[in-house]
């Protein structure tokens, strides 16, 4: 059963306020919130791809460079994100290791793959697994910001470990790249217009 779509009726829903109104070929501003209303978000796939590539590029220095430098009485140490996870594992807190692994490694990588998959299938105007892809987009939107977890942990650790010679910690450049990964992947998800999944030939719904 094919349900009618707003685009076929010459209508569009404002992304900001949700008012449904006629969309013409000219620039239309929403009667309610004055936001620019377009049938689809302009250059959505291109912007999403640009943010995705940015995120993937930043992901390398984010993992290679140290995110924190710790000095204690026993010595100095630079730690990377992966190094931090391994340290938690060694000290026996596998649960915290798992949490940071999920937030810092699994979530960004899943987002890269998921957004990549969405872009690729949308480009092919695929009818394959639309429900699942719509759900995938929702998941990507929802999990994205939890990647900030490691940035928060580093920041809190650095503000607490100011115990002079006993123990001190400062952030290192890797954390900036990691922040960049989180922001880029969030921008990629926000730039993506989920309605594109359902464009193209009407498939089984």
């Amino acid at each position, binding site marked *: 059963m094919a*349900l009618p*779509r*707003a*685009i*076929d*009726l010459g*209508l569009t*829903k404002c*992304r*900001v*306020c*949700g*008012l*449904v*109104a006629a969309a013409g070929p000219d620039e239309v501003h929403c009667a*309610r*919130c*004055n*936001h620019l209303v377009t049938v689809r978000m302009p250059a959505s796939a291109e912007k999403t791809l640009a943010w995705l590539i940015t995120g993937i590029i930043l992901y390398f220095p984010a993992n290679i460079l140290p995110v924190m430098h710790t000095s204690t009485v026993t010595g100095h140490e630079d730690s990377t994100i992966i190094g931090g996870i391994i340290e*938690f594992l060694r*000290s026996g*807190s596998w649960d915290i290791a798992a*949490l940071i692994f999920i937030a810092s490694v699994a979530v960004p990588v899943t987002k890269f793959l998921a957004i990549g998959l969405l872009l690729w299938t949308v480009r092919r105007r695929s009818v394959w697994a*639309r*429900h699942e892809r*719509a759900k995938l987009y*929702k998941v990507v*939107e929802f999990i994205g*910001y*939890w990647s*900030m*977890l490691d*940035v*928060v*942990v580093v*920041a*809190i*650790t650095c*503000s*607490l*470990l*100011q*115990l002079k010679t*006993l123990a001190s910690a400062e*952030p*290192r*450049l890797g*954390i*900036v790249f*990691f*922040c*960049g990964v*989180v922001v880029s992947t*969030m921008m990629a998800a*926000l730039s993506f217009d*989920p*309605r594109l*999944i*359902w464009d193209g030939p009407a498939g089984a*719904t």
Partner: protein
Amino acid sequence: MSQINACRECDTAYADVELARDELARCRACHAVVARHAHTDVDKALAIAIACLILFFIANLTPVLGIEVAGTRTEANIWEAVLSMDNGWIALSAGVLAVTMLLAPFIQVVLVIWLLTFARFSRRAPGFAHILALLHVLRPWSMTEVFLLGALVAIVKLSSFLPISTGPGVWALGALTVLLAVLGRFEPSSWWALERLGET
């Protein structure tokens, strides 16, 4: 008044339906929420928003975590965490933290209080449309709950070799996270219903 509504996620068009209180309409194609009953309990939402503002101040003016070793005491809360990254290029991270943990939640709460205070007296707040658009933009960038989880991870991380204690801020932060989530349930889209106030 439009007679047609559409799904935000998949663009399927529907005839507008009257929804009773607490009812919502889901899309038959993609199961996203298409419409909710446009009703905001202004008093309740305002009370929650004011509570959020108070908790926000407590969380930021008291320590969330603290360490005391040999007479030296260090403390951490959101602001201290932002300041700890204030160093060369790393300040970019401080900027991201400041926006997501401090500015976005604070501005959100203040704007909601502004809107609802006027709504309370059946008036349309000045700048109504701009404020709702701004709330829409801020929403994904407000991350108080991530800070709370980060504080919990930091406790586990440091407690093995340092005497770490929690301050009042951690409770305020916990309560703030819960109340912000409750406030988030008042969909901004249903706040557009407040727009009709003052027009009649």
